[in-house]
């Protein structure tokens, strides 16, 4: 058994997500002591628990996938049904409020164009680069700000202040500094997302239990070591949630920022989205909303996996 098993974590994490979610629920229902709980002891103790366990796990895997899938499917079905109903009721004309079928046809046409995927690739590359940059910068700034009191006093509040600035306001500065290069987009993305990352880290660091800090101090942790072995892992939950917010900001900033530099040839998602809007092509607008939503959800799933692995490691989910 490795000391830190990363591979099984993921799987465990996915599972923990569900059980973790159930935990408060059952906790909420079960504060009263049980009246009578009877379980056939043969079930567990009669058989060898080691023999029994893998079988149960396998059965549970299918169940788990089903458990995590059906609410999503149901939710989608309900939304689509409502949508179709409203459409059929002819509340608004079809070009304003298209039917699900219209949209799905448009969406199908869209995702079957290779051009579209080029755009997605371009945008995702930018998003990931920009986000990575924002994380790097945000982490350094966050660590520095939480460490040096004068820095915190000087720019602590500025961090949130920057974040409240609409991306579009950065355009003039971005053009001025970076002309019309890709860097201009990166600038807009980073300035949108880095504050979230920094704030998440700062808040995490601020809430590191004092006992742990003292333990670290007694161990003689200093400088980088202290951050690496104590501060960062201890503030990880808050940091991950900061990353999640940072992602949202960076994506939004990117959608605005992509209007800044339009690369001929491959057209980024942001530009396509704006154009769909300019063209008042409602089914296309909705299609892009769905595309952005799906990307957002997929990325969120990644964050959730990380988060669940974390909770599992911290022992915050039940066995």
């Amino acid at each position, binding site marked *: 058994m490795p000391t830190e098993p990363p591979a099984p974590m993921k799987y465990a994490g996915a599972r923990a997500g569900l059980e973790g979610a159930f935990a408060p629920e059952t906790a909420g229902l*079960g*504060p*009263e*002591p*049980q*009246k*009578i*709980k*009877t*379980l*056939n*002891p*043969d*079930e*567990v*103790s009669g058989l060898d*628990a*080691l023999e029994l*366990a*893998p079988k*149960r*796990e396998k059965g549970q895997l299918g169940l788990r996938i089903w458990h995590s899938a059906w609410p999503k499917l149901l939710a989608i079905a309900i939304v689509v049904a409502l949508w179709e109903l409203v459409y059929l009721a002819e509340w608004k004309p079809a070009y304003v409020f298209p039917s699900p079928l219209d949209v799905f046809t448009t969406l199908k046409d869209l995702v079957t164009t290779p051009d579209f995927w080029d755009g997605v690739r371009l945008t995702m590359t930018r998003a990931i680069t920009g986000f990575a940059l924002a994380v790097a910068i945000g982490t350094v700034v966050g660590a520095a700000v939480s460490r040096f009191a004068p820095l915190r006093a000087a720019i602590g509040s500025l961090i949130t202040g920057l974040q409240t600035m609409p991306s579009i306001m950065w355009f003039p500065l971005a053009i001025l500094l970076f002309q019309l290069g890709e860097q201009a987009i990166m600038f807009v993305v980073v300035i949108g997302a880095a504050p979230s990352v920094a704030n998440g880290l700062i808040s995490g660091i601020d809430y590191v239990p*004092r006992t742990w800090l003292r333990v670290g101090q007694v161990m003689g942790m200093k400088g980088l070591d202290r951050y690496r072995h104590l501060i960062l892992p201890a503030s990880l939950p808050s940091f991950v949630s900061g990353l999640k917010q940072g992602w949202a900001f960076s994506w939004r900033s990117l959608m605005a920022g992509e209007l800044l530099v339009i690369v001929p040839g491959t057209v980024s998602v942001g530009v396509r989205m704006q154009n769909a809007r300019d063209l008042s092509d409602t089914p296309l607008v909705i299609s892009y909303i769905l595309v952005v939503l799906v990307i957002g959800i997929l990325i969120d799933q990644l964050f959730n996996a990380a988060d669940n692995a974390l909770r599992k490691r911290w022992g915050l989910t039940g*066995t």
Partner: protein
Amino acid sequence: MSILETTGVRTESVVHIENVSKTYGSGSNALLALDRVSLDVQRGEFVCLLGASGCGKSTLLSLVAGLDRISGGTLDTGGRKVALMFQEAALFPWLSVSGNVELPLRLQGIGKAERPKRAAELLEVVRLGGFADKRPHELSGGMRQRVALARALAQNADVLLMDEPFGALDAMTRDILHDELERIWREQNLTVLFVTHNVREAVRLGDRVVLLSSRPGRVIEDFTIGHERPRRIDSPEVSAQAGEITDRLRAEVARHAN
């Protein structure tokens, strides 16, 4: 004990534990913490649990409190109100000392005016009269444990489960709290299940002392303490009986070690 013995419900027992097993984890990580433990605690009884470190005492208490699911067997508390004092104090840092003690009172619907008074009384019981307005982090380890005790008492439960409540206390404070606990137990006709590592303490307080074996936890012995109350922890009778139990425990640990 086989399952076949399970006939009828014993109405006189407040906590009925029969063949209860508890497995943590699954697969190759599974750990059988409790193996078919059976124990009955009668109304008004004071039962002490003894056992080596990691033998499953806390696990048993959390099962009785309904905090974890049993993996097998029967567990019945007849729907009674159960309070549990945890091994770690686990006070809420966002509440003052008094606030922590008042919280269970509040949940019972006791009025705003009444609460601080009751809380002050309870803090007096645990000898922390002057600390009502402090925050948990301003207390010493033993003081926190005492606040947790006051909080558990504030729950006004029928069954009180206590997990090493006096572990971080000096002998003198411990003596005082033994007296107080005994008084409250008598006056309120509480049923107590008390985990400790101090054999004398167990003999000082318990009607019965139950020994658990290690990994998996099993009941290996059930001593009835006959000495008349009030007892003194340094009395010869208590010492003698404690010595006897210690020997039994030592033998068990030695057996387990080989």
